[in-house]
C-alpha cells in the first residue's frame, strides 16, 4: 500500500475518523428509515431523488466534521509542518478531508441502499437518474470544501457546528424554494412526487457545475500561493457565471424533463394505450380498463381513441387522453379510476374553489363509474337521484353530462 493510502487509512480508522463515520452512517440511517417508502413512478429517478433528500442532513455533518478536523490540523501545528513540505499545507490535510468525505459518501451509499431496497422497481436504472449520484457527490464535496475553508480561517471551536447548522437551514429552506432558489438547491422535495420525472440533464449538469465552482471558490481560502489561488478563483467564477446563466434559462415543465421514448409499449386496436417501455407490465390491465370505459362512455361524450402517459404524445401532464397508470398491476379498481381520469379529466386547469363546482365534477365521476361498472359504486344516499339520471335516454344523459361539466368550471 502506498504511503498516501496508508495515511488515508490511518485517518479513516483514527478515533476522529471513526466518530465522523459513525455520525454519517447514523444520520443516513435515521433520515433514510424515517421517510416513507418513495412513491415511485415509472423510473428509478424517484429512488435517487429520495436518497438525495437525505443529504440535507448528511452534507452539514460532512461540512462540520471537515471544519473540525482542519481546525485540529491547524491547532496541532501539523499544518505548519506540512506547509514546509513538498505537499504543502493543503496536500497535508488531504488524508483528513478525504477520510471525512469518504465517510459521508458511505452515508450516501446507505441512503441509496435503503431507497433501492424499498422501491418497487426492478431491473437496472438507465443513465439519466445516475446523474443524481454525480449531483450528490458534488454536493458532499461542497460541504467538505466549505468545512475546509471555515476550518482554515476560524479558530473558535463553535465554528464547525455553526457551519453545519447554517448549511442545514440553507439547504432545507432551499429545497422548498421555487424558481431560482429551488433550481440552485441540489435537493428538490417535489421531485419524488412527480412519478414521470427524471432528472433534466442540462439542469442537473448546471447544478453540478455550480456546486463544483462553489467548492473551488471555497478551496481558494486554504490554498497557498497567489497564482494557484488566483487561477482557481478565476476559473471557478467563470464556471459559476456560465452555470448560473444556464440555470436561469432552464425551467423545464415536468413533462419536458424526460424525453419521449423512441418505442413506447403500446397495446389495443380500437382503443390504443401507449406507456413507457419499463411499464409494459401495466399495459394489459390499462388496456382492459380503458377499453371498457371508452366503450361505455362513447355514446355520451367525446372519448379519445388513443391514450398515453404524460410526455409520450403530448407535453402536458393532464387532459383527455393523458393516462397516468397506477404503479402496481394488482388493483383493478385503481386502473378503473385511472381510466376515468384519462377520459374525464377535470375540465378546468385548476380546481375551482367552489363547493358547487366540485360537487358537479364529483357527480360526473359517479355517473361515469356507474355507467361503466354498474350502480354498485353509487353511495347509498345518492342511489335514487342517480337511478333517475341513468334511466334517461342517451341524449338526456349527454345533456346532463355537458351541463355538469360546464358547472364544474363555473
Amino acid at each position, binding site marked *: 500500500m502506498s504511503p498516501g493510502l*496508508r495515511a488515508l487509512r490511518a485517518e479513516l480508522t483514527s478515533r476522529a475518523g471513526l466518530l465522523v463515520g459513525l455520525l454519517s452512517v447514523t444520520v443516513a440511517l435515521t433520515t433514510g428509515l424515517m421517510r416513507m417508502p418513495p412513491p415511485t413512478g415509472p423510473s428509478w429517478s424517484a429512488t435517487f431523488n429520495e436518497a438525495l433528500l437525505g443529504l440535507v442532513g448528511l452534507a452539514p455533518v460532512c461540512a462540520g466534521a471537515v471544519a473540525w478536523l482542519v481546525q485540529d490540523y491547524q491547532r496541532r501545528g501539523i499544518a505548519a509542518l506540512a506547509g514546509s513540505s513538498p505537499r504543502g499545507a493543503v496536500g497535508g490535510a488531504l488524508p483528513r478531508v478525504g477520510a471525512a468525505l469518504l465517510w459521508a459518501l458511505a452515508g450516501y451509499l446507505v441512503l441509496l441502499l435503503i431507497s433501492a431496497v424499498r422501491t418497487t422497481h426492478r431491473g437496472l436504472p438507465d443513465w439519466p437518474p445516475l446523474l443524481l449520484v454525480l449531483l450528490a457527490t458534488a454536493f458532499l464535496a461542497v460541504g467538505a470544501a466549505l468545512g475546509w475553508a471555515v476550518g482554515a480561517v476560524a479558530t473558535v471551536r463553535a465554528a464547525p457546528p455553526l457551519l453545519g447548522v447554517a448549511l442545514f437551514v440553507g439547504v432545507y429552506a432551499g429545497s422548498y424554494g421555487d424558481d431560482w432558489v429551488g433550481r440552485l438547491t441540489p435537493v428538490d422535495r417535489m421531485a419524488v412526487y412527480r412519478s414521470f420525472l427524471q432528472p433534466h440533464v442540462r439542469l442537473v449538469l448546471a447544478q453540478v457545475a455550480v456546486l463544483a465552482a462553489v467548492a473551488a471558490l471555497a478551496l481558494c481560502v486554504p490554498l497557498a500561493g497567489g497564482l494557484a489561488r488566483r487561477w482557481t478563483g478565476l476559473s471557478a467564477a467563470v464556471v459559476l457565471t456560465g452555470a448560473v446563466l444556464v440555470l436561469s434559462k432552464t425551467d423545464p415543465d415536468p413533462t419536458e424533463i424526460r424525453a419521449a421514448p423512441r418505442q413506447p409499449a403500446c397495446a389495443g386496436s380500437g382503443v390504443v394505450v401507449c406507456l413507457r417501455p419499463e411499464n409494459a407490465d401495466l399495459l394489459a390491465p390499462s388496456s382492459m380498463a380503458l377499453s371498457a370505459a371508452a366503450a361505455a362512455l362513447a355514446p355520451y361524450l367525446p372519448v379519445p381513441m388513443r391514450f398515453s402517459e404524460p410526455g409520450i404524445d403530448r407535453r402536458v401532464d393532464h387532459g383527455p387522453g393523458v393516462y397516468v397508470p397506477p404503479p402496481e398491476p394488482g388493483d383493478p379498481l385503481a386502473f378503473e379510476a385511472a381510466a376515468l381520469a384519462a377520459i374525464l379529466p377535470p375540465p378546468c386547469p385548476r380546481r375551482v374553489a367552489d363547493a358547487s363546482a366540485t360537487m358537479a365534477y364529483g357527480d360526473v365521476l359517479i355517473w361515469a363509474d356507474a355507467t361503466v361498472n354498474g350502480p354498485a359504486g353509487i353511495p347509498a344516499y345518492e342511489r335514487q337521484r342517480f337511478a333517475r339520471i341513468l334511466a334517461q335516454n342517451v341524449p338526456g344523459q349527454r345533456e346532463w353530462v355537458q351541463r355538469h361539466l360546464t358547472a364544474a368550471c363555473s
Partner: protein
Amino acid sequence: MLAASHLAYRYGPRRWGLLDGHFSVGGPVVGVLGPTGAGKSTLLALLTAARTATSGTLLVSGLDPGERRQRRQLRSRLGFVPQSLSIHPRQTVGEFLAYVGWLRRVPAAGLGQAIADSLLATDLTELRDRPVRSLPAGTRHRLVLAQVLVNRPSLVVLDEPLVGLGPEQRAQFLARVAAMRDDGTTVVLATPLAADVAAVCTEVVVLAGGRTLFSGTTAALAGVGGPAAHPAGPAPVLAGYHRLLAGAGAVAG
C-alpha cells in the same frame, strides 16, 4: 547560506510581519534571535517556503523559495520543527513518522529504512509501535526531532524547539542539534534566548519588531557596543544582544 535583501512580508494591509530584512549569514548553525513578536516565525515561514515574501529577495542554500521549481527543491531538502507541534496522542510513533515521510515525499521503497534510521538516531527504536500519549514529555521532544530526520534533510529549521524544556532536556536537545551539525546538516535555530545561540550557533540574525538589528557571527554579537567583560560563556552574547535591543529601543523611542 541565508541571504536576504529588502525582504518583507505583510499579513494584511497594515500588519507587517517582516520589514526590509537585510542579512547574509552562513555556517553550520545559524541562530535567529529576537523577543516575542520580533518576526522570527515569519522569517522561518519564508525560509521554509511555507509563505512567499511580499517583496525583496531571499536565497536559502542558493535556492529562491519564491520560484516554483526551486521552492519544490528546497522543500524536499528541508526538515522543520514548527513552534508548537502537538502530535495526535492516539497516533503511534511509527504512524506519525510514516505520515511525515509521505509529506516529505520519501519514496515508498525507502520509507521503512528512513523511519528506522531516524528512530535510531533519536533512541526511539523500541517505541515505534507505542502511541504518542504513552510517551513522557522528553521522549515526545525526541520524536519531534526524529520527524525532522525522516527525509535525511540537508537543512533543518527549528522554530523555538526548546520552549518548555527543562535544563537536562535542553542540554540533550542541543547535543542532538550539535550532532546534526557534525553530520554536515545545516541548522537554523529560532530562539528568544541568547544562551541557546551562544551554545550552538556560529552565526546569528537578530530581529526586533520585524526589523533586522544585526547579522554576523556570534562572536561579533558578543562584541556589540564594546568588548565583553567575560569573553567566555553565554554572558557576552547575552550582553551584546541586550545592548542591541536597548539601542533599537532608543532609536525607536
